[in-house]
């Protein structure tokens, strides 16, 4: 069955289908998705202290997460249309850091410390796509590709605070405050969906999308943090046809 469906779908892509019995001009997609795969990124920053530089290296891991996936598709031509979509994924972010703080009395005798950092990484994206669509019975088949604009916000370290007491040979991390590092990079997305129409105006569909953008998160005066936004997303939801 899966093979047959796939064959039909590919055929549809290669040769746009004839006009359907119940053609529609506009399709709304209301659903959810799941971002597969984690996203790892690193952060390094330093700041002057005691005539040397303190350095902090952090490694983050954004978990897989469910999200919102909505859109609207306008079938402008016989088998070609346009779509505007939006996705929102709010992912848990965990990480660890190691820091090196200069000694107040001696050069080249840094004190080191490690710790954990937690927060959120929120990816909101808008997708403008060219859509190829077709039909096979009650199945609507679509494939698309286009540009995406992301807004990426992640809780990344703004500094690492520590306490120290004489003779200052060790430090104790007291807090690792985070701030929202953010960027709005341009990227791309490609994907495909299969919808089943229950009636003239209602259906249900599943889709898969791969979206990607390189975000450079800025926070204060710290160096930008490069993050791969997006990834493979699968989902499904309600389809409303007009």
């Amino acid at each position, binding site marked *: 069955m899966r093979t047959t469906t796939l064959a039909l779908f590919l055929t549809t892509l290669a040769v746009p289908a004839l006009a359907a019995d119940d053609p529609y001009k506009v399709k709304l997609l209301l659903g959810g998705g799941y971002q597969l795969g984690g996203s790892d990124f690193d952060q390094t920053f330093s700041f002057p202290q005691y005539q040397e530089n303190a350095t902090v290296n952090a490694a983050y891991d954004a978990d897989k997460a469910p999200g919102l996936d909505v859109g609207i598709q306008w079938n402008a031509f016989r088998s070609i249309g346009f779509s505007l979509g939006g996705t929102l994924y709010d992912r848990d972010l965990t990480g660890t850091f190691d820091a090196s703080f200069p000694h107040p*009395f001696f050069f080249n005798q840094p004190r080191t410390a490690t710790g954990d950092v937690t927060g959120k990484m929120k990816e909101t*994206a808008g997708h403008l796509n060219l859509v190829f669509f077709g039909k096979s019975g009650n199945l609507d088949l679509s494939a698309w590709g286009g540009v995406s604009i992301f807004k990426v916000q992640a809780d990344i370290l703004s500094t690492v605070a520590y306490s120290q007491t004489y003779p200052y040979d060790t430090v104790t991390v007291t807090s690792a405050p985070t*701030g929202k590092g953010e960027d709005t990079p341009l990227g791309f997305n490609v994907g495909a969906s299969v919808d089943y129409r229950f009636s003239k105006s209602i259906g249900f569909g599943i889709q898969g999308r791969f979206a990607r953008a390189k975000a450079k998160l800025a926070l204060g005066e710290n160096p930008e943090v490069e993050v791969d936004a997006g990834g493979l997303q699968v989902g499904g939801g309600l389809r409303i046809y007009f």
Partner: protein
Amino acid sequence: MSARSSRLMAFLVLAAALPALAQGREERIATAGGQDLVNWTARLQQLSDAGQIRLTRSQDDALVSGRRHQRFAQLHQGVPVFGGELVVQNSAAGVVSVFGTLYEGIDIDARATLTADDALAAVAKLGSKPFGRGGRPELVVLPLDGGAYALTYKVRARKANSLAISLLFFDARTGALVKDLNDLKSQSAVGSGTGVLGDRKKVSARSSSSQFVADDELRPPRIATFDFHGDLNRFFTVADLFDQDLARDADNAWTDGANVDAHTYAGFTYDYYFKRFGRRGLNNNDIPIRSVTHPVNRDDIFNYSNDIVAQFYLNAFYLGDGIMIYGEGLPEGYVDLADRSWNYVAGALDVVTHELTHGVTDFTSQLIYQGESGALNESFSDMMATSSEFYFQPAGNGSLRADYLIGEDVITPGGLRSMARPHDYGDPDHYSVRFTGSGDNGGVHINSGIPNQAFFLAIEGGTNRVSGIHVTGVGAANREQIEKVFYRAFTDLLPASANFKTARAATVQAARDLYGAGGAAESAVAQAWTAVGVN
């Protein structure tokens, strides 16, 4: 498209649109004159009506009649925003000027889950105590780096055993310390400096009136260095050491080697005693350590008597009460009677530790500075001097290397004494050849060679030149054992009138106390004393 479809479309477009989240931002306001002031009158009213600012102080202008000054604190959900304030100058005609900072985009919930008592507990956990008026925890919104905000309790606190006063900000939900802001109005500042020998080191200083002064606020006691700029008369006439004489530098990049080394090496000596023995300074109660540099000018040497030259050029001495005086050395190209050049005396770590150890002796055994007890007094200073070198410097020959020579970094060639080979410097290395004359207070420096040699042999091992007795030392890797043995004996066990024989018994006892009877330390110490003829 139907009306329902239009609403759906609007929803989808909104859902797909990128959210413009409120981002923390500070608005710095400096408005004096112009149309903006008219707007400010209305804006102040708006902010006040919205509960975003609150009048905290209002007073008439004492200098310009008819003017009034008002201070408004910024609020978020009724909670003050740290640093958010407007200062408004009014006249009968309206607002004259507005200066201040307002923070925007604050999106946190201002309800604390922790209480003020929880904040006080967090202060105590850090080993600090609430201090003064600001010691009562106050709930504030704290702007963080990067535009975020945190709901915190602000507490002004003093750290234990320290003058350091901080504004501590604890997260009002988790109790974690979010920020530690030094609130001592004189700010400690770590600078860098170049020592007498051209080595670069950190200088723990304090900023004061746009300058930096050699006043260490990071170590538990006050460690300060006073530069008399060659004004010996002033040094003789001042009743005490005052801050106006503190060594100072404009940019905290110190270039006067004598000041740099006197100051940093005093700190190193404190560190050595603390880290090795847990001792808190000369009196074990953090008595201030004050160093005096440049009591004379090198160029004035020919204007002074031999006594002054001996005291303030070719010498360093412990004056008492934690005060050290460092000699100026000789002008370049000049040598002493032993054909030695003298650099600024403060430039040698062992010299600084040696003299400060006289302070330790003053507060402990008070070994009488005469005869054998005096030689023990001098020797103990040499032992600690060499030990601090080995603690901070790599072992080896040459300047800034740890060895068993005394003063070799600034008195060249060779320094003043050798603990490994006292005989090479004309000092006895065996009791049978001790100095028995009356000079040098009965040979306090000269005969220090005998216990010095015992200390050396107990660590490094070797054979005494006179007795030919071989000693198995504990080895350089275990030098800490012998340092602790002699420290314990000389600070806790010896009486003021101790002689060499007493020192032997006390150090053997100390070795037993610390490392067990019959152990390697006791054996090394006993052998060493035997080797130098003290039984």
